[in-house]
């Protein structure tokens, strides 16, 4: 029987790690945007100054369905060291949303 990722995901509950960590982090937080939180199915974020204003903008790849996903673009309208993001149009090629295969 072939197992799908769904079953495998259900199959394992990991014990918590008690290992001390050499790098410490603040309590994590999410990226607030107008529609709630930035993200998407299988969110894959990256940053680049898309509009050339000196502030890196946020790109989030995702998998919308089995045919692929879209690339969301969030413009950084904040300040250096205090980013704030607003959703722009999704990335398009020749005016159409490209279907980017997951992998």
């Amino acid at each position, binding site marked *: *029987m072939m*197992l*799908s*990722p*769904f*079953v*495998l*995901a*259900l*199959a*394992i*509950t*990991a*014990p*918590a*790690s008690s*290992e001390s*960590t*050499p*790098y*410490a*982090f*603040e309590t*994590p*937080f*999410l*990226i607030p945007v107008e529609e709630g*939180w*930035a*993200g*998407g*199915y*299988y*969110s*894959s*974020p*990256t*940053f*680049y100054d*898309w509009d050339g204003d000196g502030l*890196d903008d*946020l790109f*989030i790849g*995702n998998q919308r369905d089995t045919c692929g996903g879209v690339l969301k673009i969030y413009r950084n309208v904040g300040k*250096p*060291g*205090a*980013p704030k993001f607003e959703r722009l149009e999704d990335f398009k*090629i020749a005016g159409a949303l490209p279907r*980017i*295969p997951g*992998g």
Partner: protein
Amino acid sequence: MDLLHSGYNGSILLFRGAADRRFDAASPLRLKTGKQLFVDKLKFVLVRDWNGDGRLDLITFTERNTRLYPGTEDGTFEEPTPIQVDGKEILFRYATADIADWDGDGIPDLWTGSEDGGAFFFKGTGETSGERAFHAPVPHLTPPFSLIPPVAYVPRLSDLPSVSPSITGESTHITLWDWNGDGLLDLVIGDMRAALVQPEDPTPELSEKIDAFLGAQNAFQAFMEGPRATLPANYGTLSPAERMQIRNQTARDLSSVSHFQQLSKNLFQKNSELRQQRLLKRHGLVWIYLQKPPTEDSPKS
């Protein structure tokens, strides 16, 4: 800005940036020999100056291995060399990685996610002498350790999207970026999670479907207590590759258990019914883990 597209079929296409945020038609990446670069079962690529020679290199992550394609002066790439940890491949699925000098010692380090969550740090080591421009060292990676423990899956199925989650989900996608401008790189992690959306006023038929799903889920979870108990105690600190090996073995062991097949088939069926009703959703979030400034107890570079 140029755009690189990699596909599972192995092709890597370059969309060269043009004016007005437009892109030229795609052209394939090539090796120095002129041959088109093709990487079987490709999952993910990174473009970084890995070896410190001032040229961008290509790092490919496949289902089987991680490889470095050193960049040349004319935009092509040398034949690949393996990037391994103590002779073992770096493997993960449904996740991504990022490379940067995280600890400030001049050597690129590697962070990876994994299909069952978490973030893994692979410290880069190597030479940083001034001779690097002439004889660029390729750092090797030390064994990983888990900084953010993987999450438990099952309870999240009943999480509601409106309830603020407090920990990253599965399939962690890693990007390193200085979020708050303090000069320290921070972890930016995208994930995936499932959520059951409870309708406010469900019809009796819908309530029946939800109850049936929860019943199937509970039965499945109860059965899985056995396999879960056999996981090694240090599972949360294992590398993505080691965890993958354990999960694959667990799946193989369970594939011949008829009761497991029956329970999983029933759960899939009930799951499909709720998905058709748009009550079982999958979503992903992006988390920011700000790195705290080093203290005297921090590791020395």
